[in-house]
């Protein structure tokens, strides 16, 4: 059995609810593709080794590090970035009403410089959907993959719990 190895690969995926077909070099990470090819710079390139979490995006609803994911591994998958968050609830355009988690972060002052915030938001959305936003300790454990050098952790924890409560009450 032989496989055909290719140096350029066509990939079709959904990005923020829109279908896209792209041709990439296999080494292209999802993070680099989003930032450099698509122009979505919400996901940040902090450490580029999976240690900081600021490149966190959702792939088929699960949070993952964009720097540890190749575009070729996303064939047929659905990718959501922070730019797609506001539009997620209402199927409206990007830039519509803020996602409840975004509103909770603003309400709780859950950032200072904001660099880690896109990753924190995406991780928080998943953390709540997974059912891990139950109390302080659980949020801290399940949000530990997102580093905040301003150390806004207490506010982030409070925002995640508030958004989770709001979600549960809806």
């Amino acid at each position, binding site marked *: 059995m032989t496989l055909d190895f290719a140096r350029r690969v066509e990939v079709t995926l959904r990005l923020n609810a829109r279908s896209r077909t792209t041709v990439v070099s*296999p080494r292209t990470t999802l993070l680099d593709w989003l930032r450099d090819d698509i122009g979505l710079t919400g996901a940040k390139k902090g450490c580029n080794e999976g240690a900081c979490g600021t490149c966190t995006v959702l792939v088929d609803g699960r949070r993952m590090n964009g720097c540890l994911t190749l575009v070729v591994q996303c064939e047929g998958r659905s990718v959501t970035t922070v730019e797609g968050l506001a539009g997620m609830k209402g199927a409206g355009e990007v830039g519509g009403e803020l996602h409840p988690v975004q509103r909770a972060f603003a309400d709780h002052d859950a950032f200072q410089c904001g660099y880690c915030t896109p990753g924190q938001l995406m991780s928080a959305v998943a953390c709540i959907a997974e059912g891990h936003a139950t109390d302080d300790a659980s949020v801290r454990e399940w949000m530990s993959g997102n580093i905040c050098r301003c150390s806004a952790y207490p506010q982030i924890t409070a925002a995640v719990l508030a958004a989770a409560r709001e979600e549960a009450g809806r």
Partner: protein
Amino acid sequence: MRDFAYARAGTAEAAVGTLAAPRTAVIAGGTELLNWFRLGIAAADRVVDIGGLDELRGIARDGDELRIGALATLNEVGEHPLVTRLAGALASACLQAASAQVRNRATIGGNVLQRTRCPYFRAEEPLPWPCNKRDPGSGCASLAGRHERQAIFGWTQDCVAVQPSDPAVALAALDARADVLGPAGPRTIPMREFHLTQREAAAAGEPMRETRLGADELITGYRLPVSTAGQAYVKVRERASYEYAIVSAAADVRLAEGAGGPRAAGAKGQSAEGAGGPRAAGAGEQRIAAARVALGSVAQRPWRLTAAEAELPGTPLTREALLPVIERAMADAVPLPQNGFKVTMARNAAVRALLAAGGAA
């Protein structure tokens, strides 16, 4: 990262068929491989993607065995009800590894093949210091430099690194077997023997070899005997979450039937230190009927304390009784000048894991 050619495998056999050619790498989750490429730890001209192979997915009970597909992610393994119930130490080890988002990518098959976290090893090329793993024959900068996190068993002058995988420690403690596919067909490797210490590798004439897996072989899954004994995984680290272990311990404890009656200590969840099992009201001293215990991050392989396992039946489930048993089983530890504390820390972790597994922690 240098570019490479890419193909998706349609079957495990097809993936294995590509591995005969040099500089061909397998990608599953990619959380290790991409960093290896970036640092120059590995280089490949061709990468074969096994991520789409449904045959390597899934977690199921098969009689007295638990079968876990190689592509199950650490989060899937850690949160699967069958694993939490029948292999609680493995579930706990998976969920104490890495971060939530890394665990959504990292697979249980790839996890045991991660390389050491030795900072001299994990540097970008060209390395400014010697490292026999990166440049055979160059020497070991850690032995002459910082080595407080390194091995206390099985190291050589050539390398003092430890294997950092958490799941590997639980897999070894629970007598899991890896199902492996190679060009000659399938075979199994007991996880107790999967990794090699530097001393074992040197004795086999391949000083830098780290596992018994062949370069042309693929892990397709694991099989574990199911256990209804209490289990725990204790991980000692410098921060409470998202950090590699300084030392760790996995344990599986069956208590003797006695004054308090048999007591199934439920598998511990996320925190091995949790609330502990229910105390048998008015019961006398609990004694161990059988136990398995393995240490992590003390050698380049999970370190089963077999001498302790032989001695533990009949031992009271108390810290005072367990300490000397574990101490005797670790008498052959050879710490480096900077890591003598790991002997004490590992001993204590083993005792805590046994107590937690028995429901007494």
